[in-house]
C-alpha cells in the first residue's frame, strides 16, 4: 500500500482519483481509501471525492472514518441522495443510538441554503448584489421622473436585503465547511468525564462513529455535546473534526 502511494508521485490528482476508483473496483478498499484520503489531505475538495472516500472506508470496515467523510461530503452537496443513503447505512452499523434533538426548522433550512453554494460564490454574489443595490439607489436619488424612481427604490431595497442575506449565507457556509464544530469519534470507546483530564467523574461512554459537537477546547481535551444534548469532556485525540 505504501509502495502504491509512492508510485503515485508525479501523477495529476485526477489520475490518482481514477486509480483509487480502479482499486476500489478490484476490491482493495483500504488501498483506495488511502489514496482518496491523501488527496483530501492535499487540499483537494469535491463532493465525489469525499463520497468515494467514505465508501472506501466503509468497505474496509472503518465506519467512523466513513461517517466522517460522508458528513464532509454532505457539506459540499447537501441535497445529494446517495450520500444521505450511504451515511444512513454507515450510521446503522455503529454502536451508539441516540434520541436526537432535532434542529429548529429554520436553522435547518438556512443551513441547507447556505450549503447549496460554496462560501466564495455566496460572497461574490453578495458583493455583486450590493453594487446593484447601490446603482439602483443612485438612480432613485438622481432621476427625477416619478415612475422610474419608485421602481428603482424598491429594487434597490430588495437587492440590499438580498445582499445582506447572501453575506450571512457566505459566513454561515464558511463556518459550516471550514469551522464545523461537529466531530466524529474515532477511538473504539471513549469515556466522557465531568471535567477535562482523567480525574473528573465518569459520565458516559461513547463508541466510534458517534457524531458529537465540540463546545470548547482546553489543552488536549474537548467538551462535547452528544446528539441527545448531554455534555462531557473527552480527549481531543479520540475524535476528528468534520
Amino acid at each position: 500500500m505504501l509502495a502504491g502511494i509512492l508510485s503515485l508521485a508525479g501523477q495529476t490528482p485526477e489520475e490518482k482519483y481514477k486509480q483509487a476508483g480502479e482499486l476500489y473496483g478490484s476490491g482493495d478498499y483500504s488501498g483506495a481509501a488511502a489514496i482518496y484520503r491523501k488527496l483530501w489531505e492535499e487540499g483537494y475538495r469535491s463532493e465525489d471525492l469525499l463520497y468515494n472516500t467514505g465508501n472506501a472506508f466503509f468497505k474496509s470496515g472503518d465506519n467512523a472514518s466513513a461517517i466522517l467523510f460522508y458528513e464532509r461530503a454532505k457539506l459540499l452537496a447537501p441535497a445529494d441522495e446517495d450520500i444521505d443513503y450511504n451515511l444512513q447505512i454507515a450510521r446503522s452499523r455503529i454502536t451508539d443510538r441516540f434520541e436526537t434533538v432535532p434542529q429548529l426548522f429554520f436553522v435547518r433550512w438556512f443551513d441547507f441554503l447556505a450549503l447549496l453554494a460554496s462560501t466564495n460564490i455566496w460572497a461574490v454574489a453578495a458583493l455583486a448584489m450590493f453594487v446593484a443595490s447601490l446603482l439602483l439607489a443612485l438612480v432613485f436619488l438622481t432621476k427625477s421622473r416619478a415612475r422610474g424612481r419608485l421602481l428603482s427604490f424598491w429594487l434597490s431595497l430588495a437587492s440590499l436585503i438580498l445582499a445582506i442575506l447572501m453575506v450571512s449565507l457566505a459566513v454561515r457556509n464558511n463556518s459550516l465547511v471550514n469551522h464545523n464544530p461537529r466531530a466524529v469519534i474515532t477511538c473504539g470507546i471513549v469515556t466522557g468525564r465531568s471535567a477535562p483530564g482523567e480525574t473528573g467523574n465518569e459520565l458516559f461512554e461513547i463508541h466510534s462513529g458517534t457524531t458529537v459537537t465540540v463546545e470548547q477546547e482546553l489543552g488536549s481535551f474537548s467538551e462535547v455535546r452528544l446528539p441527545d444534548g448531554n455534555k462531557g469532556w473527552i480527549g481531543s485525540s479520540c475524535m476528528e473534526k468534520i
Partner: protein
Amino acid sequence: MNKMMTAFVFLLAGLAVAAQEVTLTVDAPESAAAGERFRIIYTVNSTDGQFTPPKFDPSFSVQGPQQSTSRNVQWINGDVKTISSTTLIYYVVAGTPGTYTIPAAQFETKKVTVSSQEKQIVITAGASSQASASQQQGQGQVRASGDAPSAGTDVSMKIILGDREVYAGEPVTGTLKLYTRINLSGIQELKFPDFKGFLKEDIETPPLRSLENEVIDGVQYGTGVIQRFVLYPQVSGDLRIEPAEMTVLVQERTGAKDPFFDDPFFDSFFSSVSTVPRKVTTQPLTIRVKPLPEPRPADFHGAVGSFTIESSISGTDARLNDAVTMTVTLKGTGNLSLAGEPVISFPQGIEKYDPKVTVKSTGTASGSKVFEYLLIPRNTGTFEIPPVSYSVFDPGQQKYVTLRAEGFTINVTGTPGEDQGAAPAYTPGEDVKYLGQDIRFIRNGNVRLSKISAPLVSGLYYWLWFALAFFVAAMVLLLRREQIRRNADIAGLRNRKAARNARSRLAKANDLLKSGKKEAVNTEVARALWGYLGDKLRIPQSEITRDKCYSALRDRKTEEEIITELDRILTATEYSQYAPVSEGESPDALCRRAATLIGKLDGVLD
C-alpha cells in the same frame, strides 16, 4: 394307637439323632463389595436345639435370620434314616471396606454344643449406591469364586464402544454384551443410563436366545449381545456414560448341602432349584469428544462423517405453476440423522417449499438422506438453480470437505392465466423483494479536482470592497447632486428671465422695424421665440427643433391652438427670411402676434 405311633416315631428320631454327629457349617463369601448385600448361611443337621448367632461386626447391618427346617426320612435296605436340617440365612451389608472375621456361631442340643468355623471376609470398596439400591430387588451379585472374570463375578455385563476419542457429531457404535458362567433363565429388565450429551439410536438387535461360548483369560463364558446402538456426541469434552443396569434371573440351588451326598449330580438332583433375580451393572465409561475445528464453512450444516452428494430433478422443462421436484441425496457413513438440509438459493420467481426429508439406514450409522424440494415456477423464463454446495466434516481426514452437486437450468413456458383452471384470473401485485443492503457504488466519472481557496469572508479585503463600493456610490451621488443643483440654478434663471429676454428681443425688432431694416426683424422674432422656448422648456439651443418643442409643450398640457399659432409664426419667420418682404406677412403684424403668443405661453408654462 395314635399316641403309640407318635412315640415310635420320636423314638426313631431319637435313634437317628443319636446315631449321627451334630455339625454346624457356615457358608459365607470370601469377599464382598462394601454396601453390597451378601448372605451368610448356617446349616445344622438337627432341628432340635438352640442356635446362638455370632457376634457380627458392629459395622455390619444384619437382617434375618431366615430360618427353614427340613426333615427327610429314608428307608435304605430296610434301615430307616432320618435326615433333618435347619438353615439360617443372614443377609448382611458391610458398610466399610476391610478384612473382617465372622466369629463362630453355636448350636446347643440337649447333649452337645457345637460351634461353627470362624470365617474371614474381605470387604472391598465397590459400587455402592447402585448395589444398595438393588437390595430391594434381589440378592447381591457377589459370590466369590476364585478365578472370577474381569468384574469378579460370574454374571457381568459390558458396554463395548467402537471408539473412545471422537469428534463432536461423529457416530460411535456401542454394544451391550452379557457374560455369564452360570445358568440364566432370562433377562427381566434392562435399563440404559440417560446418555447425557449424546443422541442415542438403537440398532435393531435380534433378541437374545442362546449364548455363545467365549473364553476370556482361560475362563469360559457364555456371551450374548443384548443391544447394539449408535451414539452421536452432541457436546465436546469428556463425556461420562453412567452404568447400565439389568436384572437377570439366575437359577440357584436353595436346598441343603449334605456332607454325605456332596456330589454334583445328586446335589442338583436333590436340591430344589429356584430362580433368583440378580442385578447386573456395567462399569462407567468416559468418551473424549473433540470439538469440530473452527472456522466452520458457511455451508456446513452439522454433517460429520464420510459422505457423497448428488442431485437430480424431475424435469428441466416445466409448465408455469406445475410442480418440479429437485432431489438432493446425501449418502455415506456418519451422523445422517443430524445432517441439516443444504441451503440452495433458488431463483426468485420459483416458489420453494420446505424439503421432504427421508432417511434410509443401511447399517450402523450409514445410509442415505434424501431432501426433496418441491418447486413451483411462478414466472416464465429460464431459471438457473445454482450447484449445491454442502460441507461436511470428515473425521478420517480431520478436515471439512465441500461436496458439490450439479445445478440445473429450468425452462418455464406457459402463459399466465392460461389453462390454470382454478387459478385466479388476476395476478396479485408483488412487492419488490429486497435481498440485502449495501452502500451505493463510488462515482468514477470525470471530476475536476481543485484545491480549496481561502474563504473570502474571513479576509478583511472582502469587506473593504463593500466599503469601497459604498464610497464610490456616495461620491457619484454627491457629484451628480452638485451638477443637478447647478443645472437647476442655470435653468431656473433662464426660466425666470425667458419672458424678459423675449420681450427685449421683440422690442429690438420693433426698433429695427422703425428704422426700416425689415429683413432683420424676422430674424429677431425667430430668435426671441426659440430663445424663449429653449429656456422655458429646458432644451439646449443646440438641440432644439420644432418637434421637440411641440411634444414638450403637449407634455405640459398646452392648448393645441397655441401650438398651431406657434407653428404659423415660426413658419412665417423662416419663410420671410428667405423670400422677398412683399410676399410675406408684414413684419409689423408678426411682431405683434409673437408678443401675444409669448404672453399666452407664459401663462401656460410658468
